[in-house]
């Protein structure tokens, strides 16, 4: 018999108590992992930002457009390699609650986003049709759309019904790439606006500026903004990362609250396990005294009590993590739908797994610390007196 067997038998001494603690940790692991994944999903756009892309938008606000005529002027600024355009369309499919991101873009925009992996024949088909669109794989799965389908969107900014034919379904180049976007030709929208709402035509939401390698993005940004200083529509140019961060900062308070909640759930389970371990150790003080009498050293007691605590904590972690994997593998689409498309990238990242594991490890160690300290410091004679 080895010490591990004694640890295991001690864990099973009060099956109900152990089971409840174990389940508590599994649930908390699940909750913690879920919250951290949701936070990661929210910041995924920031993580996916490219170093060589910048975004130019109206200095007043993203809500105000910029004239398309700026494109050529920006393209002439030293260090700028390419300028693409993007425009938030804000339409919905059937039900306004079924949110997903839809943008009007130009060809250069698509060329800059190499993380959108699209078969060449699909890209060619998209380029040849004015009302064609490209959609992400997850969005296609969510609505059951396939190539050749015609999708009618209802505009909320640009009113009316808008028909698009799906000519491409892109996959993300990596796990942080958003696969829920709906992209189509800005020219198609602009032509219709010229006829129906001329005031809105020839304006775009933002420019995506690709800069040359080894070019200082700050200098390029300042040069762009200086170019439009004192114009009716002054610009503000930032790196794509800063742009994405400012875009999601609107929900910053909610994210902060979620981060706080994730820490709180860990603290709660820490107290639960600490209480379990304290009760356990108090009941067994006489046994620890006997073990010390037999020649077991403090390190053995650390192993016994700490091992029991870690076994429960890490066992619960394993079950909770297993549940997370299962849910994310089988219900990712449901989660995206339940979150109204906000959480398009719902992947359990290595960082989240490591953080969850570290939390379980910390809970196991800290919960055992005080009972172990008491058992180690206890005088044998005092421990033996607890029996009588």
């Amino acid at each position, binding site marked *: 018999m080895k*010490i591990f067997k004694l640890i295991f*038998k*001690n864990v099973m001494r009060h099956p109900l108590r152990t089971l409840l603690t174990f389940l508590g940790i599994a649930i908390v692991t699940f909750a913690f992992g879920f919250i951290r994944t949701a936070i990661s999903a929210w910041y995924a756009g920031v993580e996916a930002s490219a170093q060589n892309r910048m975004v130019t938008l109206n200095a007043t606000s993203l809500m105000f457009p910029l004239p398309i005529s700026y494109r050529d002027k920006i393209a002439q600024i030293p260090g700028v390699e390419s300028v693409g355009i993007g425009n938030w369309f804000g339409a919905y499919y059937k039900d306004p609650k079924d949110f997903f991101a839809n943008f009007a873009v130009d060809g250069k925009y698509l060329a800059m986003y190499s993380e959108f992996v699209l078969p060449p024949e699909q890209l060619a088909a998209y380029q040849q049709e004015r009302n064609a669109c490209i959609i992400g794989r997850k969005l296609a799965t969510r609505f059951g759309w396939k190539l050749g389908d015609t999708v009618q969107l209802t505009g909320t900014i640009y009113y009316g019904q808008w028909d698009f034919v799906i000519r491409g379904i892109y996959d993300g180049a990596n796990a942080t790439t958003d696969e829920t976007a709906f992209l189509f030709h800005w020219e198609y929208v602009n032509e219709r606006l010229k006829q129906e709402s001329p005031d809105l035509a020839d304006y775009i939401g933002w420019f995506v500026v690709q800069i040359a390698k080894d070019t200082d993005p700050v200098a390029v940004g300042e040069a762009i903004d200086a170019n439009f200083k004192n114009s009716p529509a002054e610009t503000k140019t930032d790196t794509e990362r800063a742009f994405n961060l400012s875009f999601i900062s609107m929900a910053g308070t909610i994210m902060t609250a979620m981060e706080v909640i994730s820490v709180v759930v860990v603290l709660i389970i820490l107290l639960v396990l600490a209480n379990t371990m304290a009760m356990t150790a108090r009941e067994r003080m006489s046994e620890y005294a*006997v073990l010390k009498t037999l020649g077991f050293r403090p390190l053995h007691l650390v192993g016994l009590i700490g091992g029991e605590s870690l076994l429960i904590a890490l066992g619960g972690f394993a079950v909770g993590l297993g549940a997370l994997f299962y849910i994310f593998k089988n219900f990712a689409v449901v989660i995206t739908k339940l979150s109204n498309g906000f959480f398009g990238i719902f992947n359990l990242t290595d960082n989240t797994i490591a953080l969850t594991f570290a939390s379980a490890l910390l809970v196991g160690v800290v919960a055992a610390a005080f009972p172990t300290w008491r058992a180690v410091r206890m005088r044998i004679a005092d421990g033996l007196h607890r*029996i009588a």
Partner: protein
Amino acid sequence: MANSIVEVSNVSKSYRRDSLKIPVLENITFSITEGEFLGLMGPSGSGKSTLLNLIAGIDRPDNGSITVAESEVTKLSESQLAGWRSRHIGFIFQFYNLMPVLTAYENVELPLLLTKLSKKERQERVHVALNVVGLGDRTKHYPKQLSGGQQQRVAIARAIVADPTVIVADEPTGDLDKNSAVEILTLLERLNQEFKKTIIMVTHDQRAADKAHTVRHLDKGELV
């Protein structure tokens, strides 16, 4: 003349309760020869168990020295004491103190986990010890499946399995009925006579003391 295996010299011990200093043992000096079966008797609070704890190295005296098997235990560090206890002392407690989650076999094996013996060697020793106490057929039983007398016999097997120099027994029959007590005393007597084990036994029971070669009485912390 037989060699002394335990030498207690001018040992005093007191406890503190709040600001009160309560003397328990006063200048105790005596020795125990190898192979002796010593009974320590005395009223409650006379310091018998305290003296036993001091000899067994689980408590420290305020003054004096105690030498057991040529080691001056009063000079050993806590870590050294732990190792020394595992090699030289076998403990028998009034309430058996078996691990409830371990079988009889596993309880007896516990002290051997601290040694470098192989699994096979441990197995042999555990079976020998359990056979000596007459429980060779109860290896897989848990303490709660055994009677009080049987549990105490498992505790004795645990005490002898590492072949200690001295066996200390604190009221070994105190929690047993008359028949079980007789069985345990007979077993201790056999360990002493047949296996030449030195035994120090604290007891209130005159019948138990009658099994000892020598009986010493403690009263108010002094040997009388």
